[in-house]
């Protein structure tokens, strides 16, 4: 680029001035480099043989090393502007043909072109939808030891107040031939970015019978989710995996297609459908990621029967390892923490906590349990039933009585829906309240959670990402009178039925996982270790 350095001089000065002012303009070389890289990556994705050369290219561009170029147009400029000088040197081959093209257009035209392209990119970046698919091919190429700036696509279910996102979703569902579920009732203004569905209008009513697009096992699963028949993080994940096993068993590869790619595409509408029935939980998300990875790792020369057998085996392994054996390991650790004469407080119905208590009882530990329950789900009654059947001495209270009963309690065991990367515990609404009151009375709080529920998201409050359940659940009939029956007719009245909340890590004393007993703040460490393993 040395010969092109002269005519570039004044332009570069302009650009540097502009870069100082706006911080967003790219120099000509950088834009051309971007274009070249895009083309190269597309080619290499199909051929998969460009890796060593691109790696060497990347090492020579230290400033722009981290992100593959097409990811964000704003990131590279900040890094590339200072490296404009050394950068042109290592790319002589690709740049010289473009350098030859340059004198053909005038500088003003090129500037205008550049600006138009940038505006287009900025506009498309605003939707944030384009970033995802472009990031995906970029990611697996970078060496795993570097820290990835993770640019995630914001999930649709927390963008309900954005009409563009809703339009895109509607188009996607139409393409996949899945009905769109409409929101119900007056939404509290703080939560207008979330969906609120009615249980009386399940999605399956809008499907034809028999459904040709969606596998019947998935339809049944979706209905079970939306009606609350299958509830609880572990139960939902296991049901999902069993339904996927059925789908895989019934699957046949169409001619001229590869199983690894076609099966993943076949699963996408099913996942959209389940998401419409009830937003996916963190554990389900991790399970789906695992399955997709396993499917895409099937070698293309594998025969169909063998591939299917392998996949079914993988799923069984996953369930066994991550859920069943994990529960055993957690029970073993927890029993060390339960001593004779303990009074243990539990909230709602967590399959894991119930398992732990039953195991401890079988190992002849003497303790009694206080089950705390809350409206409107009243899941504590199910936990109470299971524990009383085992013969454990139980007491039952509602959550408003927790500060009354807490002086008697020696430990609090809580289950979790997901553990977030900043140490917050996402669990059933009311968990944070119990942790707060326990902290005020100096009672230790222990959270039990399997590692497959660990999630890379971060969240600090219960508003930005949550689930709104059917508001009609709050209506209660007592002695024949219902106060809120006609709440829809009153314009300024809203009912709020939250499903999850986040507990700050300073309320939690210990997290018991299958990898051991860790403090809440060590969750990102576990995530990193898991990622490196995989």
């Amino acid at each position: 680029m040395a010969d092109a350095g002269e005519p570039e001089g004044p332009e570069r000065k302009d650009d540097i001035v502009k870069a100082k002012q706006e911080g967003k303009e790219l120099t000509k070389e950088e834009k051309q480099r971007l274009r070249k890289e895009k083309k190269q990556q597309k080619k290499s994705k199909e051929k998969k043989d460009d890796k060593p050369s691109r790696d060497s290219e990347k090492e020579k561009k230290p400033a722009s090393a981290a992100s593959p170029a097409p990811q964000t147009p704003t990131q590279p400029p900040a890094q590339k502007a200072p490296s404009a000088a050394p950068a042109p040197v290592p790319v002589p081959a690709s740049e010289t043909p473009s350098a030859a093209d340059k004198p053909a257009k005038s500088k003003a035209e090129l500037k205008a072109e550049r600006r138009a392209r940038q505006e287009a990119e900025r506009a498309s970046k605003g939707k944030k939808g384009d970033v995802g698919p472009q990031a995906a091919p970029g990611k697996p190429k970078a060496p795993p030891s570097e820290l990835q700036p993770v640019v995630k696509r914001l999930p649709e279910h927390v963008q309900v107040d954005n009409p563009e996102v809703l339009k895109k979703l509607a188009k996607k569902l139409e393409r996949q031939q899945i009905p769109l579920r409409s929101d119900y009732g007056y939404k509290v203004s703080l939560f207008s970015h979330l969906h609120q569905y009615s249980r009386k209008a399940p999605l399956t009513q809008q499907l034809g019978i028999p459904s040709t697009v969606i596998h019947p096992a998935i339809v049944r699963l979706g209905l079970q989710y939306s009606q609350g028949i299958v509830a609880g993080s572990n139960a939902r994940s296991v049901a999902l995996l069993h339904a996927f096993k059925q789908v895989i068993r019934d699957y046949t590869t169409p001619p001229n297609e590869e199983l690894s790619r076609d099966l993943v595409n076949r699963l996408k509408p099913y996942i959209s459908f389940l998401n419409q029935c009830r937003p996916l939980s963190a554990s389900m998300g991790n399970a789906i990621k695992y399955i997709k990875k396993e499917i895409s790792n099937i070698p293309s020369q594998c025969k169909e029967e063998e591939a299917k057998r392998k996949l079914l085996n993988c799923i069984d392994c996953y369930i066994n390892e991550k859920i069943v054996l994990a529960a055993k390991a957690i029970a073993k650790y927890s029993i060390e923490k339960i001593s004779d004469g303990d009074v243990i407080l539990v909230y709602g119905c967590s399959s894991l906590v119930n398992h732990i208590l039953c195991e401890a009882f079988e190992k002849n530990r003497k303790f009694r349990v206080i089950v705390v329950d809350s409206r409107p789900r009243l899941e504590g009654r199910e936990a109470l039933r299971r524990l009383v059947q085992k013969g454990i001495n139980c007491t039952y209270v509602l959550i408003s009585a927790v500060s009354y009963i807490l002086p008697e309690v020696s430990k609090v065991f809580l289950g979790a829906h997901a553990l977030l990367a900043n140490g917050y515990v996402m669990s059933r609404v009311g968990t944070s309240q119990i942790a707060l009151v326990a902290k005020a009375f100096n009672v230790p709080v222990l959270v039990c959670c399997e590692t497959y529920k660990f999630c890379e998201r971060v969240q600090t409050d219960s508003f930005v990402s949550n689930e709104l359940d059917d508001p009609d659940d709050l209506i209660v009939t007592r002695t024949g009178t219902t106060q809120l029956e006609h709440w829809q007719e009153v314009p300024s009245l809203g009912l709020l039925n939250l499903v999850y909340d986040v507990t700050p890590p300073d309320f939690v004393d210990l997290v018991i996982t299958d990898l051991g007993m860790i403090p809440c703040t060590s969750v990102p460490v576990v995530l990193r270790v898991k990622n490196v393993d995989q």
Partner: protein
Amino acid sequence: MPGPDKETDLTERIEAFLFDLNRGGSGAGPLRGSAETARETTALLRRITAQARWSSAGDLMEIIRNEGRRMTAAQPSETTVGNMIRRVLKIIREEYARSRGSSEEADQQESLHKLLTSGGVSDENFRQPFAALKPNVIEAINELLTELEGTTDNIAMQALEHIHSNEVIMTIGRSRTVEAFLKDAARKRKFHVIVAECAPFCQGHEMATSLSKAGIETTVITDAAIFAVMSRVNKVIIGTQTVLANGGLRAVNGTHTLALAAKHHSTPLIVCAPMFKLSPQVRRLSFLSDFYRYCEILSKVNVHCPVFDYVPPELITLFISNIGGHAPSYIYRLMSELYHPEDHEL
């Protein structure tokens, strides 16, 4: 003959009142607000003063104390009854002292003086009969009744000093005082109210429907979501059943959790309580069986359903009463103005 008739009439009324109190406690009868109970108690005491046979202040006080003991025994959790009785006893003492001629300031100085000296047995035995005592006492009780009738309005008048526009206010359960307070503010300001429903009786639902019909933006949440939404709340305004002598509260179930959540988020907690709820009791640590309502004992499970919560004074920011706003640390002083120390135990 007017005498015995009046007496039987009086006894009948007292018995009917006791019966109502008893029924109200077990949940079988209609639930009455504490303002109503206070008014009825005071009216009954006025009637006793007017119709019972007594010659000196000491006699009257003895009669009222006996009836008072029976009333509080009928429903121990309804503390306004005991409070009104103590107020009336204080009124009688004051009227007696005034009739005897000693000024009120001397009385106060006497009590302060007694604080410093050994505070021996008071030589007042209230045995001197005064003719003007009866009408004076009845007049004073009438004044008390007028004060009782105006308490809710007095508290509601202060609403605009505490609520600004676009606020989010949280409350729990149903309190008529807080309802009037918020409705008064809503006439001039626009704000949002979140009501925690307070299971299992779900009185919050009534509160929410009443507030929303007055045009206030209301949201009903479950008790479990109190901490989850607290980060967006600007103020917590609650009512209470009783204000204790140390500035703490005996309030409806779930209030302690609400207070802890407000403390965690540094949200001010305002209690709207009229003066007749002020009680010289302190927190009783024993588990009383009359504390529970609707307890079912399934064969293998214990179920607890406490009705009231104790909230310590450190969690409370402000008390709003019909005589203005006070800090919790000032409550003991107000109490010494309302009740005489010898009446704390009836």
